[in-house]
């Protein structure tokens, strides 16, 4: 038996040296059971005491690892490297997109302070303003700082940095995250601090598209000129929505030819109605099923 114990202890030590602490623990436990169940070992208590010390030391190692910060603050050099290595757009061709990607990478690696600095700079770039604002809000929430996030949003709502459409989108975006996180908009310190930052959260890289349930199109030409027609959305894939048009509605089919730009569309989402524009991107006649003969029309949302 002593040979078996020796071999198991050797394995446990090696696993520990390899950093495989769970495996080492299992081996120590096995040794403990063997010793405790034996009546023949002369120095049983001494062996158990020695083993107990080893297991305590192992538990301390486990605790140190578990308590180590998962997102420690990195040096400026490392942050620069992260930005450089994880921005995939060409710096020469599209510097602001590249900068946005770098800032998002910093946030994904938990370097929120550095990321915020970058996003703040990007607020000055018109094309990246909305994405930067969304990511600033996201960063503060990840840091558990709901108060600052809310203040930021309110400041933008009152100011003129963002246009009204962007403010609407930002507000919906913010409310959506708060809802997903189970946070209230009012700054409640206890709740905010209880919410630990999760690295699994996605940072805004692309514009998110809301679920659209229906549209109301106002026509500026054709048989429906000046009229508003409401249609239900049957399917949505990203920024393309599909609608069913009855084959009987010839005037509408005439109005919605492929390539027609629709400048006045109300998009109905579960949270609000948005005014925007779209482009008729496809129209196909349904060949089978209950809607046979009707038309499936695709509208690409161009602005929302």
């Amino acid at each position, binding site marked *: 038996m002593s040979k078996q114990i020796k071999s198991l202890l*050797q394995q446990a030590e090696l696993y520990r040296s390899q*950093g495989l602490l769970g495996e080492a623990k299992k081996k120590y436990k096995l040794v403990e059971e063997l010793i405790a169940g034996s009546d023949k070992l002369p120095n049983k208590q001494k062996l158990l005491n020695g083993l107990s010390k080893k297991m305590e030391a192992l538990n301390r190692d486990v605790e*140190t*690892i578990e308590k180590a910060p*998962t997102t420690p603050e990195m040096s400026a050099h490392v942050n620069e490297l992260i930005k450089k*290595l*994880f921005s*995939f757009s060409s710096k020469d061709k599209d510097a602001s997109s590249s900068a946005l990607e770098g800032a998002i*990478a910093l946030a994904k690696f938990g370097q929120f302070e550095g990321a915020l600095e970058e996003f703040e700079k990007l607020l000055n770039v018109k094309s990246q303003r909305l994405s930067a604002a969304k990511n600033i809000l996201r960063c503060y929430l990840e840091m558990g700082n709901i108060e600052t996030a809310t203040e930021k949003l309110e400041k933008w709502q009152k100011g003129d940095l963002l246009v009204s459409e962007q403010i609407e989108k930002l507000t919906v975006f913010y409310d959506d995250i708060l809802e997903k996180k189970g946070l209230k908009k009012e700054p409640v310190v206890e709740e905010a601090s209880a919410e630990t930052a999760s*690295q699994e959260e996605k940072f805004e890289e692309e514009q998110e598209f809301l679920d659209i349930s229906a549209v109301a199109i106002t026509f500026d030409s054709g048989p429906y000129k000046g009229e508003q027609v409401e249609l239900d959305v049957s399917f949505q894939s990203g920024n393309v929505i599909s609608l069913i048009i009855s084959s009987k509605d010839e005037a509408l089919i005439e109005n919605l030819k492929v390539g027609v730009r629709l400048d006045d569309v109300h998009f109905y989402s579960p949270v609000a109605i948005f005014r925007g524009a779209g482009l008729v991107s496809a129209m196909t006649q349904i060949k089978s099923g209950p809607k046979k003969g009707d038309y499936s029309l695709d509208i690409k949302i161009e602005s929302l």
Partner: protein
Amino acid sequence: MAVFNLKKREIECKIVYYGPGRCGKTTNLEYIFKAYKKQVEGEMVSINTEGDRTLFFDFLPMELGKIKGCDVRVQLFTVPGQVQYSSTRKLVLRGVDGVVFVADSLEVRREKNMLSLKDLQQNLKDYGLNIFKIPMILQYNKRDLADEGMPIMPIEKMEKDLNRQLKVPSFPGSAVKGEGVGVTLQECLKRTLHSLQKQFNWAQK
């Protein structure tokens, strides 16, 4: 995704060392850093946490010199192996051109190897890449531990577990001793550059 500068005739590609926690990915890079000093361009960057576990990634840039009339640069990365760092692992994998999958030969790590390979397949898929098509090499690391009486898996068993369907080149290794490290990297580079030749037609004939 590799960057090919046609004007300067430069190609830069990304190879990622993937595998379960504590399998020896960082040790592979540390050995490369020491043994291939001439080709190493700058410093190796390691972002570790307690217990020397990779927290974000390791990064080692290499300059291979001129190959078929083109300056070839390689960026070597490791991912954090621990299960809880899945989002970081995925981020590091973005834009990968070739993969070295480091498997742990220890019998007790058998399941972890298989789970990590499955995780790799899923992450590649999320980026629109196919594990069967990407240039890939398997390394069965820690073979030296058999000498210390540790239960390790026979190569045949590891091949059956991990390479039955992939059928990619595989090498036994002991990264801590430097065994199998060079050949693994060389084979991965060869396959990666060959694959990039098909995409960019960069090599001068």
